[in-house]
């Protein structure tokens, strides 16, 4: 087939790379792209196949082999029976911890960011830019530097080791990024719009509700996805500010994998890892475009 194409192709005398060379390059290109795709997919493939195998098959078979006999036993154990230390309730309670932690934390920090961004971009008063810089700076600190005082503060507030306490930490340290996202979005709205609305007698909140909010769907999606990914995937706050019953799913996953009681069940570990990864993976597959926009906005525009 390739012979046929190259022999009947256009005379390539005048062109710099000859036709066969071009085809060879194209093949090389696709081979390289394919090899890299395998590199990125391999861990996911191994996780899925391992989670569907029995322990016996894992011990005797190859890492990359398809399961001979598919069993969902490991998934059942990971969801409702695996041990995180002394408790053996699986990932389920911690998965729900993460849900009831992430949903309010995402919403609160996003709305605060929208309000802040609206003020900074459109109602500039003296010192507003300084405040913005101060908030931006907060995005870059390594959280280790606030870990100890935050743990004490949560204790003083009486919410140490609780889900609301963890939520509070995520909201506080999420404000910088959410404000940045909305500010950069609202800055592109012409200021004359606000002036005209003011002339018509609309106030601060009215302008926000009727003009800015309807415009904001894309940036809301970007911010919600960014915050959700951050909070769902967080481990540092989770492990520092929670206790036995209130841990988020990442902490529970790590405990399951490192629990030393009994036989090492790799299939359960892998099933648990996939369960913990599913929500953010799902978001990525459904709304990848917005996910990437958040990533690049969070980094390039910093």
């Amino acid at each position, binding site marked *: 087939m390739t012979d046929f194409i190259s022999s009947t192709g256009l005379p390539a005398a005048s062109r710099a790379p000859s036709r066969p060379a071009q085809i060879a390059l194209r093949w090389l290109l696709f081979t390289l792209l394919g090899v890299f795709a395998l590199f990125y997919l391999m861990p996911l493939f191994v996780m899925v196949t391992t989670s569907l195998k029995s322990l016996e098959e894992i011990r005797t078979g190859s890492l990359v082999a398809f399961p001979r006999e598919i069993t969902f036993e490991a998934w059942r154990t990971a969801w409702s029976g695996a041990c995180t230390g002394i408790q053996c309730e699986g990932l389920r309670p911690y998965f729900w911890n993460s849900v009831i932690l992430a949903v309010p934390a995402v919403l609160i920090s996003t709305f605060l960011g929208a309000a802040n961004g609206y003020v900074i971009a459109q109602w500039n008063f003296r010192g507003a830019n300084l405040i913005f810089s101060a908030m931006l700076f907060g995005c870059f600190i*390594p959280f280790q*530097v606030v870990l100890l005082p935050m743990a004490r503060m949560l204790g003083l507030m009486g919410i140490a080791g609780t889900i609301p306490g963890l939520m509070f930490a995520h909201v506080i340290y999420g404000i910088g990024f959410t404000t940045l996202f909305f500010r950069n979005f609202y800055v592109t709205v012409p200021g004359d719009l606000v002036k005209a609305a003011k002339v018509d007698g609309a106030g601060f909140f009215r302008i926000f509700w009727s003009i800015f909010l309807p415009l904001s769907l894309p940036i809301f999606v970007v911010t919600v996805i960014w915050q959700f990914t951050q909070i769902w995937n967080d*481990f540092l706050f989770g492990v520092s500010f929670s206790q036995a019953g209130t841990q988020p799913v990442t902490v529970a996953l790590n405990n399951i994998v490192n629990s030393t009681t009994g036989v090492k069940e790799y299939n359960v570990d892998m099933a648990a890892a996939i369960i913990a990864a599913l929500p953010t993976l799902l978001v990525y597959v459904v709304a990848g475009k917005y996910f990437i926009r958040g990533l690049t906005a969070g980094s390039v525009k910093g």
Partner: protein
Amino acid sequence: MTAWLERQIPKMVLAPSFVAVLIFVYGFIGWTAWVSLTRSRLLPKYDLHGFIQYKRLLASPRWDTAMDNLFVFGALFIGISMLLGLLLAILLDQKIRVEGVLRTIYLYPMALSMIVTGTAWKWIMNPGLGLEAMVRSWGFESFSFAWVIDPKMAIYAVVIAGVWQASGFVMALFLAGLRSVDGEIIKAAQVDGIPGWRIYSAIILPSMAPIFLSAFIVLAHLAIKSFDLVIALTGGGPGYATDLPATYMYAMAFSRGDIGQAASSAMVMMAVVFAIVVPYLYSELRAKHD
């Protein structure tokens, strides 16, 4: 009166967040800085004792390992992720029909928690049943790949997992950069018969300097904050062979009961971050004002 009140609304909306940032960012940094200058152990004490904690830090072989690891991990993680990301971006930029699918595949690790990444790679690099066993079963009986349990090599295992997770993100940054280069210039160069690799090396890449810088900043930031990946992949071990400043800080704060050490190590981490980020932020802000 109502007009005055009306004018204050924006300030009142911003005020709670501002106060929160003042307390929880700046106040807390101040607290940590103060405690790093005391003899605090299990509980914080507030009488100052100079740089005693920083001296202890410098004298600690464990901290020494953590800083060495940060340097090795940081250099390799940033270097390899940048090279791989750039290569992938250039390959994807050749008018590929399945570009969208490939981009999705290269980038999905970025959506995962580092705990998930660490768990997956820990299993893959597990010497008894993972890659090592697989290659041996193919007939290469002497093949050995036990980096995760080898104190000398474990940090390179962390590099592999880190690169796997972050390189797709660098690819996305670079690809956006490649696409933003003025198409007319490239067309003109092609008409002049300049070969493709020269167009990249002499025209496209130099115009992407700001993106190189952004990618570097983000990766450096990720490297310094790396905590979950090490915890999940090696637990900081074997021994403390893969400790990073972040895991050192955590160990001192929550399992060793040495708050003074935790605070001083956190301050050093912040100093490293700022040594990298502040010049960047400064130049960005200045560029916007000019």
